[in-house]
């Protein structure tokens, strides 16, 4: 397939990189010719996952966030990985409104990822880190041939 592509990147867990990473992933996803709503869903979900690495995984420290992204058969896959504190109880963590933070977090990060993407998979080992894998199918639209 012509549009198969992938990239990987590593950024520091600085809060200014939240906007950087979501704009990189959305620039990458543009080759799938997504709708405005699809792009905005992707940006929002990626922003949640990256923010979690910064706020939870590497709380009070600076660590590395690893992003892997690929496009295949019109599906965008984004994998966001940290080597931070990990999650003890993933099921509980994914419940809407659950948060371990007192810093005005709404506890809705996972809920946003779940509802804005087609699928989410979370793997985590306490003390080792967490990997969140997000997938979204981008609908093929008629004419618009990209140059």
């Amino acid at each position, binding site marked *: 397939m012509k549009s198969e592509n992938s990239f990987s990147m590593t950024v520091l867990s600085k*809060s*200014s990189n*939240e*906007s950087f990473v*979501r704009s990189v992933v959305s620039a990458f996803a543009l080759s799938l010719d997504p709708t405005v*709503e699809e792009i*905005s869903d992707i*940006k*929002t979900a990626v*922003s*949640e996952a990256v*923010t979690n690495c*910064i*706020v939870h995984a590497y709380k009070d420290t600076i660590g590395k966030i690893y992003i892997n992204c690929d496009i295949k058969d019109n599906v965008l896959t984004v994998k966001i990985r940290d080597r931070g504190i990990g999650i003890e109880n993933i099921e509980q963590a994914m419940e809407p409104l659950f948060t371990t933070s007192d810093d*005005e*977090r*709404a506890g*809705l*990060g996972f*809920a*946003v990822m779940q*509802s*804005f993407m087609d699928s989410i998979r979370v793997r985590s080992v306490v003390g080792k880190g967490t990997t969140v894998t997000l997938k979204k199918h981008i609908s093929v639209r008629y004419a618009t041939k990209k140059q």
Partner: protein
Amino acid sequence: MAVDIVVKGEVLTARLVGEIDHHTAYYIRKEIDAAIELNMPSLLILDFERVTFMDSSGIGLVMGRYKNISKRCGELHVVGAKPQIYKVMKLSGLERLVKLEMCSQEAKK
């Protein structure tokens, strides 16, 4: 990111401009809370018309301001949210606590 604050009588309007995420929410929160402290409004209006992006940090921001204004017996309205912003807000069930109005164009749909 910027916040424009306008005070008219008992009404404090905070117009948010740009992208709201965890990084920018901290600054917005400080600005608005300082203005509440100073003006003691009975109604706080958060205007999202010029917000171009928001993740769940924005929900935390609205909830936090709701708590702040409620404890002073004031009310909170959210206006001007574009579809992407509204989508995040709806997910949170915010509308049960706060008066939500989408931006005028969108509301007609």
